[in-house]
């Protein structure tokens, strides 16, 4: 709240940050973009998160992996308060979002979120999807919002789709529009909730390529994913969750390459073995 509302926002200059690889300036003061401490979350009698501690530093890419129902998505949704934590504290971009005094709408505009189901607004064109939130939330004028939107459509490689409605786009294109929509708000960090799980296999690559580039540009990212190769290549750190707790975390070559815990090994064996993976696919997300 003591921050200037527009810092970290504004139009992403196309390619401006590409390749500089540095930590973006938004991490000023503290290097932790996300700091989760003692997070518990219950739905009725069901305890989904059983005390989670996790820190994501500015510019870091952290992938959360784990079996269905392990609480990965709930953890992500607690970060921008789409789910209200039962107890524990969540600090994001310098705000304690679990503090009831904090205006959550002001914090959320700094946090980009990408959903498994895309959640594009079907009554708006691609351009409308990108400009309406900027205009209504950030108060930008039409011209500025469209300029920012077009810049971000270029980033995801969809400049030719700005007048298309979501229903006219493939799943992969929809998800890239959703990423561009989140980026248009000038977020300091991005949350990805299984962004490729609803996609046909041949469309996964385009979305992962966009995410890979974002990571290279230095975006802070917390990614829930089943894409082990993405986690291995792009993540600075991989977190393995099971049954509402963090079982193991560390650099990808350790967690994915040489897992220390038996549960991690069992999970990876199932995911990486194609025959077993088919069974896994059929479990509800």
């Amino acid at each position: 709240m003591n921050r200037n509302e527009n810092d970290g926002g504004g139009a992403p200059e196309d390619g401006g940050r590409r390749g500089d690889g540095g930590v973006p300036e938004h991490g000023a003061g503290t290097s932790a973009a996300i700091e989760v401490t003692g997070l518990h979350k219950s739905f009725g009698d069901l305890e989904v998160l059983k005390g989670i501690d996790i820190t994501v530093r500015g510019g870091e890419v952290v992938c959360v992996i784990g079996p269905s129902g392990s609480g990965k998505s709930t953890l992500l949704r607690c970060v921008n308060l789409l789910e209200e934590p039962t107890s524990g504290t969540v600090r994001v971009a310098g705000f304690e979002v679990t503090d009831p005094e904090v205006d959550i709408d002001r914090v959320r505009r700094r946090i980009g979120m990408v959903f498994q189901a895309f959640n594009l607004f079907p009554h708006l064109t691609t351009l409308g999807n990108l400009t309406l939130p900027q205009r209504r939330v950030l108060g930008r004028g039409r011209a500025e919002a469209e300029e920012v939107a077009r810049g971000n459509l270029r980033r995801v490689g969809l400049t030719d789709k700005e007048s298309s409605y979501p229903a006219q786009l493939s799943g992969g294109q929809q998800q890239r529009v959703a990423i561009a929509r989140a980026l248009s708000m000038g977020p300091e960090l991005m949350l990805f909730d299984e962004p490729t799980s609803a996609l046909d296999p041949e469309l996964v690559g385009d979305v992962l390529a966009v995410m890979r580039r974002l990571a290279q540009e230095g975006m802070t990212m917390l990614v829930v994913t089943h894409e082990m190769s993405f986690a291995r290549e792009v993540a600075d750190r991989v977190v393995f969750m099971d049954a509402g707790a963090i079982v193991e975390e560390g650099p990808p070559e350790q967690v994915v390459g040489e897992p220390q815990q038996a549960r991690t090994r069992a999970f990876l064996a199932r995911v990486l073995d194609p025959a077993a993976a088919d069974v896994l696919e059929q479990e509800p997300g």
Partner: protein
Amino acid sequence: MRRRNRTRLIRTVQYGVLVAAVLAFALAADWGELRRAFFDLGVARAQFPEVVVTALVNTVVYTMIGFGFGLALGLLLALMRLSRVPPYRWLAVGYIEFFRGIPALLVFIALGFGVPLAFQVSINQYVTVMLALGLVGAAYMAETIRAGIQAVPKGQTEAARSLGMSQSRAMVSIVIPQAFRIVLPPLANELILLTKDSSLVYLLGLSMDQYELTKFGRDALNQHHSLTPILIAGLFYLALTLPLGHLVRRLEARTARAR
């Protein structure tokens, strides 16, 4: 083989009954009398142009102001019905149950005669019509709109909120526009019902230039002792409601395709 014969026999009997009924009617009916009662060209001609420039126009005007007011009130009631504040929900439910459960005619009598008598005020006729049609229509539209709002996937609100929109901003910019697209067919249906309900205006004391189709037809019936004006009024109602009905079916087909 025997089953096919049986089917054919039953169909022959069905056609036979129909032909017999039509013949009996054609022979028994007094065609001259029927023509004089229903299709008196002289009487028919006498209705024009007033039946169009006054009656049809007024029917449309009454329907539209009633629909407009009802839609606004219906949206408000739908939002109250979904409010997190229980008293708002109770008020909305009470209103909806009340106005869906009483005849529209009673509302017209209450507003047209009851209120002016009880409070010693005179209300503009157009306001009376707007209130009477709107109050009843709102109860039906509220339930339709509520269902539409609830039919918008939860992910839409979540996406809007995660972009920093407030609950009310997400409702206005994201949920309600989609809800209205979903409920367009039932709303057009409600417009058809209101078009017909606008005939209840006939019981208010109206001046000639305020006549709508039903009152106009009733007046002409008294004057000419002919059913022709009633038939003409009916045809003009159909000229309004049939295209609307067609529109509803097209909208429904479009919605079915979009899903």
